[in-house]
């Protein structure tokens, strides 16, 4: 009811503002995909200099909407007004010509090109001629906004935070009037986030409108002037974030389902189950991170969380522990007082290890296989009798998983690739937890999963811990780690920080660690012990 009233008010205010010409106005934008109405008559209005949050769970239609604005997706119905004039945005280049810039969630940079080449690719020839020397223009803007971007560096040598600044720079060079940011903070350390916000505030003061997509509600309340909340492709509410709390906004996002600020009891493990001892390995990937002297212990009955910005060695660490990459020394990893560094992934699974990789399609599941077949992949011994696959049992197991974790799909015969990311994640989590492993290694357990299902996954993880399993949780979502982990640690540039009890630390300290402040002291310590 309240929502309806707000909507009407918003509608009225748009009418009033039409005389002063809003920067951008969307009227009745509708987009139908096969089997899903992604955007259902969406109205949205943005003033010059306004920072506007676009909120909603995964699958609420945010991405489709911003892609429509940026010309990547053509709407089936509806009008777009730009500075009061009706426009058709056929392609991203039309959008850019209007003055719309976008920073993507997965960056659209080319790693083998330099910063200035990357920026050049986005500019029209006319624009380039106007600018003159691109490199000096980049330096000048870099200074003006405190972006700290070196035009001649190759992108593959930049950190994630720097890459994001390159993307923002790319928009600035084009003198944008509307900047769209798709979950910009999900890859940044807390310190980098506040730097980003300073840039956004400066831009806003200069009259640039910003459309800000985020899942992190405290950020929205901190920086945004207006918020539009989507659910199931519809605008369900609008609000002024500074007048709301994260909890009240969350409620608007998920309806009445949300259970905010849940607290789980922290536990202490019983005995050391798994340990990594002086684990150092160069990365196999050209742009990968080498692991440097990683050392930690994991106890039975506890959850150890490893925080870190993406690309700091998480993938390499996961691969080494799971056995996907078995170049480690025999003695550098041990499980149950047994050295396992030399064992293959399959042998490690037989010893009671389970693994949820970050990449769901291709690593966690075979895209072209049915869910039943994907179940078989890691339950092979369970469903085989006398050398024959027990299809009936496997099928029943798969359908039980689908029911238990509320996986949205046609049935256990659906191909893995036909599921949405969040639903596949639920299935894979269920499959791995269902093996009752002694040790579960898990990356981003609720990535792309809606709030209700995330709660179910959290509960399943905690139950597993309470049964005495050890869980290693690697995530970029600090809030989730603080919620679930009994002990915390952070990874930066292949170094692993010390581990501390979650009660004894705070977001600030972990944030510092994510930025690598522990590395020097750790290095001194090891040098001391060596000498």
């Amino acid at each position: 009811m309240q929502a309806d009233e707000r909507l009407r008010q918003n509608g009225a205010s748009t009418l009033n503002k039409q005389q002063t010409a809003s920067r951008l106005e969307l009227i009745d934008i509708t987009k139908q995909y096969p089997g899903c109405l992604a955007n259902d008559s969406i109205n949205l209005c943005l003033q010059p200099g306004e920072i506007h949050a676009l909120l909603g769970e995964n699958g609420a239609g945010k991405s489709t909407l911003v892609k429509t604005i940026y010309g990547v997706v053509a709407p089936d119905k509806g009008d777009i007004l730009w500075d009061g004039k009706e426009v058709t945005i056929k392609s991203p280049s039309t959008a850019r010509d209007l003055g719309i810039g976008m920073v993507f969630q997965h960056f659209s940079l080319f790693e083998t090109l330099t910063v200035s080449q990357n920026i050049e690719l986005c500019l029209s020839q006319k624009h380039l001629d106007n600018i003159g020397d691109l490199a000096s223009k980049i330096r000048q803007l870099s200074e003006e906004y405190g972006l700290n971007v070196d035009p001649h560096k190759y992108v593959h040598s930049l950190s994630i935070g720097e890459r994001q600044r390159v993307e923002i720079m790319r928009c600035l060079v084009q003198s944008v009037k509307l900047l769209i940011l798709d979950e910009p903070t999900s890859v940044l350390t807390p310190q980098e986030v506040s730097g980003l916000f300073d840039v956004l505030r400066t831009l806003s003061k200069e009259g640039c409108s910003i459309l800000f997509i985020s899942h992190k509600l405290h950020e929205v309340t901190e920086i945004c002037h207006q918020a539009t909340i989507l659910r199931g492709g519809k605008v369900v509410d609008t609000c002024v974030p500074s007048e709301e709390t994260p909890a009240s906004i969350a409620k608007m996002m998920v309806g009445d389902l949300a259970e905010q600020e849940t607290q789980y009891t922290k536990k202490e493990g019983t005995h050391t189950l798994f340990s990594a001892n002086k684990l150092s390995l160069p990365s196999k990937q050209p742009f990968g991170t080498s692991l440097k002297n990683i050392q930690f212990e994991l106890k039975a009955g506890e959850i150890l969380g490893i925080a870190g910005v993406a690309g700091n060695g998480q993938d390499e660490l996961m691969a080494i522990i799971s056995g996907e990459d078995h170049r480690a020394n025999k003695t550098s990893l041990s499980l149950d007082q047994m050295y396992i560094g030399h064992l293959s992934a399959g042998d490690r699974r037989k010893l009671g290890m389970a693994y949820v990789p970050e990449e769901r399609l291709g690593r966690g599941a075979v895209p072209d296989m049915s869910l039943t077949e994907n179940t078989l992949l890691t339950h092979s011994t369970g469903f085989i009798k006398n050398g024959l696959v027990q299809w009936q049992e496997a099928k029943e197991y798969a359908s039980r998983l689908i029911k238990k974790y509320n996986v949205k799909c046609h049935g256990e015969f659906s191909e893995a690739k036909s599921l949405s990311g969040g639903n596949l994640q639920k299935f894979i989590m269920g499959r791995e937890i269902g093996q009752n492993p002694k040790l579960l290694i898990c990356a981003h357990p609720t990535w792309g999963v809606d709030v209700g299902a995330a709660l179910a996954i959290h509960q399943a993880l905690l139950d597993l811990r309470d049964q005495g399993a050890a869980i290693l949780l690697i995530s970029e979502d600090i809030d989730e780690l603080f919620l679930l982990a009994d002990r915390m640690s952070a990874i930066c540039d292949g170094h692993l920080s010390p581990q501390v009890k979650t009660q004894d630390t705070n977001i600030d300290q972990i944030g510092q660690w994510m930025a690598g402040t522990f590395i020097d002291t750790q290095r001194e310590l090891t040098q001391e012990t060596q000498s």
Partner: protein
Amino acid sequence: MDADLITQILFAAIKTGTPLLFIALGEVICEKSGILNLGQEGMMLMGAVVGFLAAYTTGSMGLGVLAAMIMGSLMSLIFAVLVLQLGANQVATGLALTIFGTGLSAFVGSGVVGQTIQGFAPIDIPLLSEIPYLGEILFKHDILVYLSFAITIALYFVVNKTRIGLTLKAVGENPNAANAIGIKVLQVRYLAIMFGGAMAGIAGAYMSLVYTPMWVENMTSGRGWIALALVVFASWRIGRIMLGAYLFGLASIMHLVLQGLGWSISPNLLAMLPYVATVIVMVIISADHFKEKLLAPRSLGKPFDPRNMA
């Protein structure tokens, strides 16, 4: 060995390396856009036979080369439609194109097997050909060799110095990102593939109009495959492709050289040299995974479908 002999050997190496240079230049542009076309051999054979037929019937060498280029691009267009439009597997489609081209060229050319024509006459470039040694090696060739010089220089400039080159690299590295910033990925790939086809066509024409001015079934004898290795050997750099092409050319005339020196090694063994060299080079390059990945276009061989972007 005297200086004259060395000059002659190098002259011959350039002549032998030229078809490799043409086809490898085409392939490298194609691969830079992220497309692996294994149909080189088929396109080259079709270029050779059609080029020969055109020159044989019209008596015009220029028309022969033009026909070969058009034929090569048409062949590559089949590949492009299958791979880009219909999402067919690049490796399988490329192999099929080679098999198709081999068979079709034999069929088309069956009437003119053994016929000969007057090939392109060598042109001595005034002044330049007077330079001692160097002039002998570089500037007493036929027009197609000079064309290959020009194309190499032009491509070097385009790939490394222009926006077109930047766009090409961008598409080959990350087609999704390229699409997001408004580059027409499929259009770029179509053009790159068809350029590769046209170059394969010229390479074929060089075989049947200049190198041995006649048509024989399978006359390219695996040069399309060597060119693929050559692109890797040159780590996708234009300048190195030219150098590599002449090295490979040198390797394939080595048996003549050694015979000239009076070494009695079976010519069959020596004829294997370029292939052995190819294998060795491939092994050396693949040994360093790190470098291989850094140099190769990162999305090479991976399909891109703009319809999946939403």
